[in-house]
């Protein structure tokens, strides 16, 4: 696991049924591109988050492929429809195989 990785998510706790809400996500990650060289001239191996997904009650709402040119601490903001109460699950896939997960529940009323 890359060091200092911590996922963060901001989801409203409550929404009206059928409302569109804004979700913000951020994961602290170095996003080493694999293009840089260290002091002795050898290439620093690529280490990035390569995929990000968000699901709502098991249904996928967004699936993103990340490329090496994306800067450190990738931040995503997107909108989602909330048809019912439930749980958002967020997953970040690291190059080294680690998967970082975070979930947030939302009530309708």
């Amino acid at each position: 696991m890359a060091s200092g990785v911590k996922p963060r998510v901001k989801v409203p706790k409550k929404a009206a049924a059928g409302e569109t809400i804004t979700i913000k996500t951020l994961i602290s990650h170095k996003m080493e591109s694999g293009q840089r060289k260290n002091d002795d001239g050898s290439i620093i191996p690529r280490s990035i988050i390569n995929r990000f997904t968000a699901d709502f009650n098991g249904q996928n709402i967004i699936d993103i492929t990340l490329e090496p040119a994306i800067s450190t601490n990738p931040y995503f903001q997107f909108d989602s429809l909330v048809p019912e109460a439930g749980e958002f699950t967020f997953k970040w896939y690291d190059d080294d195989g680690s998967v970082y997960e975070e979930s947030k529940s939302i009530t309708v009323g």
Partner: protein
Amino acid sequence: MNTTKKLTSALAIVAAAGLTTAAWADPDDDNLVINEEIEIVTETAAPAHMENVDTIYSGWRFRSDETQAVQMDDFDNPAMIFVEAAAEAWNAADGSEGKSCSSCHNDVESLKGVRAVYPKWNEAAGEVRTLEAQINDCRETRMGAEKWKYTGGSMAAMVGLISSVSRGMPVNVAIDGPAQSTWEKGKEIYYTRFGQLELSCANCHEDSYGMMIRADHLSQGQINGFPTYRLKNTKLNTVHARFKGCVRDTRAETFKPGSPEFVALELYVASRGNGLSVEGPSVRN
């Protein structure tokens, strides 16, 4: 009448002729409220000791709307990643005494208001101390830990954490009494031209704020927003690192971060922002 005022009236004439240009832009009129609750004063009357400026503005007012927006919510503010790391360091014991910051200071909220009054005269030490110097003094004498690098990542993050609890409070550094001679020295440095380009702080930040220096929109050089997350280097930057960058850009040999010269300059520049809100950790370009 100072140069900026003359230029502003010149701009008014140009504007009347329908020939406005963005290159002569004064600070904008936006309001800064962080997390929809902390109201930040970004414009106020200049403190009495300032002879050539009537109104002081936070650097936030000179940035683009996109950059401004990033600072308006802690979730969006990338500086908060560093502040969170500092909050962990706050509770982590370090050094031979087995103490952490929280061993003496409990919650970081107990330091609310501290950022607003630093740099500050330290009676026991007989000198003006910056927050960074005070942190290192705590680490060395109370914790028995290694000093942090003055402009390093751990230091910038800790100052950011301590600043964050004072946000919205007015900057109010004391410039009289025992601090006065240090303040005078800082003022002298502020108005002294340095380097091959022969520029003083005042040439850009007092005479020419609001103008463009090539692609950069010159602010008043206020430090109420420090430490600052800069988009150009994606990390928190300390006041002295910024001073160093500015002096270097005049093509001068710079003073060292933590040197008596920069401590004096920090006190003087901070005093020019007396009345603005503590804003750090802020976001700039």
